[in-house]
C-alpha cells in the first residue's frame, strides 16, 4: 500500500506524478490531504505542489498526446468522482511508458475511463450552458444559480463570455460555493462572504426588476403553447431534462399569475 496525498489542485496532482517518477514509488491510492485518512499500513507521501514540476509533466504530456486528450484529462480532474486521481495517474503513466500515442487504446481500462469521465463532464457542461436561467436584478446584473454534478464552472466561462459580451452577468455554484462574474471587460472567479443558499436561487422580490417577472411569465406562456398535447410523451421529456434540472427552469415552476 502506498498512499500519496496532494492539495486537491490539478497542479498538485501533476506534481505528484513527477515525484512518483522521481522516487520510483508508485501510488496505490491518492487522496486530497483535506479528506485523507492516515494509512493503516505503510507510509504516506505528502506531496507539496510545485508549479515547475507540474509544468514539466504537462509539457511531457503535450509531446505525447493531442489537445483533445489533454482536455479530457483535465475534465477527468473536474469530474471529482471517487478514485479519479488514480485514473489520471494510470492514464499519465501509460502515456509516458508507451512508445506510441495511447489515446485510441480503448482496450486499456484507464483510457476508456478517462474518455467516459470526460464525456460525463462534457455533458454536464453542455447542460449548464442550456438549462441555466438568468434573472435580471434591479442594478442590471443577470444572475444565475446552479449546483452541477461536476465542477464545470471553469468550462463554461468562455461560452458565456462570448455570448453575453454586452451585459453584466454572474453564475454561482452553490455546491462548491464559488462563482464566475463578468463585468463587461473580463470574467473572474468570485466568492461571497455570506454564501447564498442552495436550491433554485430565486431572487427576492426587492432585488428583481418588474420586467423580470413579466418575461418569466411570457416564457411560461410560450412553453405551454409550443407543446402538442396529441404527442404527449412524459418519458421522453424526462430523458431529455432529468428531474434534477427542473429546479433551474422557470417553465417547470408553478404558473405565475398575471
Amino acid at each position, binding site marked *: 500500500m502506498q498512499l500519496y496525498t496532494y492539495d486537491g489542485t490539478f497542479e498538485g496532482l501533476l506534481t505528484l506524478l513527477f515525484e512518483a517518477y522521481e522516487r520510483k514509488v508508485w501510488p496505490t491510492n491518492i487522496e486530497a490531504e483535506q479528506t485523507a485518512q492516515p494509512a493503516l499500513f505503510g507510509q504516506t507521501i505528502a506531496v507539496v505542489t510545485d508549479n515547475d514540476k507540474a509544468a514539466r509533466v504537462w509539457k511531457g504530456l503535450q509531446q505525447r498526446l493531442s489537445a483533445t486528450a489533454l482536455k479530457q484529462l483535465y475534465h477527468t480532474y473536474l469530474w471529482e468522482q471517487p478514485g479519479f486521481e488514480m485514473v489520471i495517474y494510470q492514464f499519465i503513466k501509460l502515456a509516458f511508458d508507451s512508445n506510441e500515442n495511447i489515446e485510441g487504446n480503448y482496450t486499456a481500462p484507464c483510457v476508456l475511463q478517462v474518455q467516459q469521465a470526460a464525456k460525463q463532464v462534457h455533458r454536464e457542461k453542455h447542460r449548464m450552458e*442550456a438549462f441555466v436561467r438568468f434573472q*435580471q436584478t434591479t442594478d442590471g446584473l443577470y444572475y444565475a444559480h446552479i449546483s452541477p454534478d461536476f465542477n464545470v464552472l471553469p468550462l463554461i466561462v468562455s461560452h458565456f463570455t462570448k455570448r453575453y459580451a454586452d451585459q453584466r452577468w454572474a453564475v454561482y455554484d452553490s455546491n462548491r460555493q464559488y462563482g464566475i462574474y463578468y463585468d463587461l471587460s473580463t470574467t473572474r472567479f468570485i466568492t461571497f462572504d455570506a454564501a447564498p443558499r442552495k436550491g433554485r436561487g430565486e431572487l427576492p422580490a426587492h432585488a428583481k426588476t418588474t420586467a423580470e417577472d413579466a418575461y418569466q411569465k411570457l416564457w411560461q406562456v410560450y412553453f405551454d*403553447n409550443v407543446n402538442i398535447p396529441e404527442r404527449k410523451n412524459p418519458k421522453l421529456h424526462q430523458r431529455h431534462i432529468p428531474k434534477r434540472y427542473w429546479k433551474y427552469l422557470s417553465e417547470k415552476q408553478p404558473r405565475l399569475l398575471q
Partner: protein
Amino acid sequence: MNERVIEKLSILADAAKYDVSCSSSGGKRKNHNKGLGNAEGMGICHSYTEDGRCVSLLKILLTNHCIFDCAYCVTRKSNDIKRAAFTVQEVVDLTINFYRRNYIEGLFLSSGIFSNADYTMERLVRVAKKLRQEHKFNGYIHLKTIPGASEELIKEAGLYADRLSVNIELPSEKSLIALAPEKNYSEILLPMNNIKEQLVQAKEEKKLFKSAKDFAPAGQSTQLIVGASSENDQQILQLSNDLYKNYSLKRVYYSGYVPISTDNRLPIISEPPIIRENRIYQADWLMRFYGFDVKEILDEHNPNLDLDIDPKLSWALRNRHFFPVELNTADYEMILRVPGIGVKSAKKIVSARRFASLNYEHLKQMGVVLKRAKYFITCNHKSLQPYDFDSQRIRNKILFGDGAVRSPLLTQQLDLFRQVG
C-alpha cells in the same frame, strides 16, 4: 408587460408549433462586435416540450392571418380561429429579452400570408435586419421564405438569417394540388433553387475575398408532412434523397400529421403517426451518416418501412450474405452497418484494434449493443451465437427477447419440473 402581448404570444406560438424544425446548429456567426449573442458551433436545446421536442428557438408566426386555404394547416383561412399579429418591435423585444435570460438560441420566424407574399416577406426581413443592425444581435435567426416572394427579398433575408427554409409539406405534386390549391411545386422549388445558388455563390466569393458577405451560413432546410396524404415511405425518402443531392439541403424534417382539421380533403386518423415518423427519421440518418443509398433502404418490394424494427436491422435481415462481419478486420463502412453498432462505437473499434485484438468484453465496454449485434458479428472468428438462425428467428429474438421463443405455458411447465426435481 401588457395582456395583449401574452395573448398574441399564446396564439402565434401555438400556430407555429407544427413546424418541427428547431435546430440552432451550423451557424458561424461570432460575437464580433461586442454585441449580444454568439451562434458559432453547436446548437443548444434550452428546454424540451412535454412531447419531448427540443426548444431551442423562439418559434412564432408574425401573424396567423392567411389568404391561403391549405387543408392540413391550422392557419388556413377557412378555419374559424382567433387571429393575431405581432408588430416588428414586439418580436424584437421578445427575442432579445428571452436571449438575455438564456431561454433561447435565437428566433425562428414564419408567417401566414397576409396581403401578398412580398408584403409578408418584407416584414420578416425587417425583424431580422433590426435585430442584427440596431441590437447587434449575433444569435441564431431562422427565417421561413414565403412561397412566391421575390428573389431580391430572399437574397436580403439570407444576409441577416443563419438559415432559410421553404416548406414543401406535401411529398407529391398530386397531393399538393388536392390539399393546397393556392400553392404549386414550381413556386416552392424555385426559391429553394434560388437559395441554393446564392449559397454556392457566397461560398465561392468567400474563397476569393475574406470580406465577402455570408449568406445563410447554416444552409437551408424543409419539412414534409407524413400521413396527411397517400405517399408511401419510398416516395418520401426518394424525395428527401433528391432534395439532399440536388438542392444541397442541410436537413429535411418530417412532421407526423396531427389531426388538427376536420377538412374532408384529409384522411381521418385518430392520432399522429409517431412511430412511422420516427422510422423515417432513422432512414434519413442512414442516408446521411451511415452511407446507405436510398435504394438499399426501400424498394418496390418493400415500399414501406417496418414499424416494429429499425431500418438498419431491417436491411441487415434482408442482406444476411454480408454477415457475419469480423470486427478485428472489417472496414469501418461495414462495421457501421452492423445493427447495435453506432458511429461512436464503430470509430472506437477501428481505433482500439490497432493496439490489441478485440474481444467481446472490449466491445461491451465501448458501448456495442451485443443483444442486437451478436447475430451479425464475430470477434477473432468466435461468435456468441452458435446457431445459424434464419432472419425471421433473429427478428423474433430481438423483438421479444431470448425467452420468448418458448411459449409462456412451456416456461411455466419447465419451472414446475425444476421445482419437483
